[in-house]
């Protein structure tokens, strides 16, 4: 029996091989005890403040919004140590591992941001760390692979299947099912079997708590909308959770890839249907026969065929709205933020920003305040952007020659 409700509406649950159930129960029990332990909270808050660098600022984009009545704010998780919101929850989970007397951490990573964060937490708290990463992602995010290794983590290349995050997740779960007695599986997002979606949300909810306090200070009112990108959905649930009971639109932005009408996207909420995968019931990209489909996004961190169950539920009850942004739109937003505000956003966060820009351009005379969760910084993505821009230039040259 679980102590907490493992479901969000019909979504969530614990769909794992029987062998893993004791490990999940143990984790839930320790999480509940830790939440009640003032020492745990004190130590966590201390790490967040003095190691990770919380609170992160809420930055008003004055150049970006000039000439419109839209006010766009960025919640600056890119300024957190490690370069993304991921650091918040890995510190919490690493502390939980220690509480459970487990000195080994298993993690999986797509863009490498969670891998880097896991390596950071493990180096700091003296835990052994092995990180599963798809072979394709290792190639497209090699700077992050180097960072992980520098901090002492072992990076294991996953060649199975599509060689991306989905396969790294499967491999990490396989490892855990034989090593759970000594290791903790540090899931990187608000997905997977219960209690992970709840744990990750609780360890990320300070993003929303801070943002609310900061916007009330700066604007003396709540925003009209909060916009965040969605892969598994941890940064989004982190910033949404403190606004769920307020009159604020919550907008999650899925990766539209080449376009949601092509087969190359990662938008299970708007394009998938309910299924069971990676330990949970949630929305899934799957074919007619129920086989899981490969997702696609230019942003490795959003390249996942499913989504956290709480988002599936928020979508179901129409509390949050889920939209999609294509690779091209995200790249444009990336360039705009670099040029206008001197901030290099992660390609993941660029999806959220692109939607905010869409809202601004669609209603330039409408008074609206938007908070975009800038979940991470984009240094890791500059070689991808460089390739895209070079290709654009080449295409332009060949078109000009043909005219």
């Amino acid at each position: 029996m679980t102590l907490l409700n493992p479901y969000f509406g019909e979504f969530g649950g614990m769909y794992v091989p029987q062998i893993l159930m004791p490990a999940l129960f143990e984790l839930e029990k320790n999480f509940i005890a830790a939440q009640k332990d003032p020492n745990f909270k004190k130590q966590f808050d201390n790490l967040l403040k003095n190691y990770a660098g919380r609170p992160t600022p809420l930055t008003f984009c004055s150049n970006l919004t000039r000439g419109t009545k839209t006010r766009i704010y960025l919640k600056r998780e890119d300024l957190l140590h490690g370069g993304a919101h991921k650091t918040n929850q890995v510190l919490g989970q690493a502390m939980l591992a220690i509480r459970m007397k487990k000195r080994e951490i298993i993690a999986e990573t797509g863009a490498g941001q969670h891998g880097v964060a896991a390596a950071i937490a493990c180096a700091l708290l003296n835990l052994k760390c092995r990180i599963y990463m798809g072979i394709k992602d290792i190639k497209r995010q090699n700077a992050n692979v180097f960072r992980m290794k520098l901090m002492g983590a072992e990076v294991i290349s996953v060649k199975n299947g599509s060689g991306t995050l989905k396969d790294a997740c499967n491999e990490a779960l396989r490892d855990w099912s034989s090593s759970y007695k000594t290791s903790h599986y540090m899931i990187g997002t608000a997905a997977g079997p219960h209690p992970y979606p709840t744990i990750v949300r609780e360890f990320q909810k300070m993003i929303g708590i801070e943002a609310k306090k900061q916007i009330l200070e700066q604007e003396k009112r709540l925003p009209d909308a909060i916009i965040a990108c969605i892969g598994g959905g941890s940064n989004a649930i982190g910033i949404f959770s403190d606004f769920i009971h307020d009159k604020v639109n919550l907008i999650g932005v899925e990766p539209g890839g080449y376009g949601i009408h092509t087969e190359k996207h990662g938008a299970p909420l708007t394009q998938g249907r309910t299924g069971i995968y990676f330990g949970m019931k949630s929305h899934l990209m799957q074919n007619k026969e129920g086989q899981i489909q490969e997702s696609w996004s230019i942003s490795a961190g959003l390249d996942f065929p499913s989504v956290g169950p709480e988002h599936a539920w928020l979508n179901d009850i129409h509390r949050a709205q889920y939209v999609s942004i294509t690779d091209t739109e995200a790249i444009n937003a990336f360039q705009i933020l670099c040029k206008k505000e001197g901030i290099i956003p992660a390609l993941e966060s660029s999806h959220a920003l692109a939607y905010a820009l869409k809202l601004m351009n669609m209603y330039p005379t409408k008074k609206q305040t938007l908070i975009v969760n800038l979940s991470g910084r984009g240094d890791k993505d500059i070689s991808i952007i460089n390739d895209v821009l070079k290709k654009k230039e080449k295409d332009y040259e060949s078109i000009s020659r043909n005219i």
Partner: protein
Amino acid sequence: MNRYQEIFKRLSLLKEGCFIPFVVLGDPSLKISIKIIEALIQNGADALEVGIPFSDPLADGPIIQKANLRALSQKNTFLDYFQILEKIRKKYKRLPIGLLIYANLIYNQGIDNFYLQCFNSGLDSVLIADVPIEESKVFYKTANKYKINSIFICPPDADDDFLNKISLYAQGFIYVLSRSGVTGIKNKTLSLPKKFIKKIKKYNSLPLLQGFGISSSKQVKQAILSGLSGVICGSAIINIIEKYLHEEEKMIEKIKEFTSALKLSTKL
């Protein structure tokens, strides 16, 4: 008496253990898969466990995972699989046939519709690799409606609470794991301690079958001697399929040899 009860009763009279091979349907192709299944049945399989291929079989190790992907590359449909199962059933009326499947494939078919298909194809049991007993309610209820046995897995470190729970739900037989982890052959597959087997038996009267890592006659003998009713053997057979992927005749020959040898070692 259902087919599992019949076979276990018969084997116990003969003082033999039960040998259940596992293969993935459609691996490497539907045509060869049928031949493999025939070879298994004719060379000593007391019952059959078949996997429906899934793209992300996370309870399985690399050997079975590759078998799943090989089968999927053939682009067969659910209907194809059930048609084959029906044919096998028609030919082997008393052979217990169980399915091993992942939850999404059932959910995608519609739970009721899936178990109805199982019933219509004459299947005996379903084991859902990623549905633990705690999540099994809706599947279990529907399986019962269509008289399909739900098979549950008992981990090697199960506590009294779990053994009590499994005794309330288990049907057909109990799939006892040799070790933690995923399927596959490892150098070190431990035999289950007699004390543990005795403990499971205290809670349960169903036959106990050992699975995960079974690849030799010695292990089979050990399992039977320690009080288990038999073994399930998957990866070792699939290993043969992979090894002789392009030499069909040799593959079938090797499978026959292996099956006969393992079946023989269930006769103490």
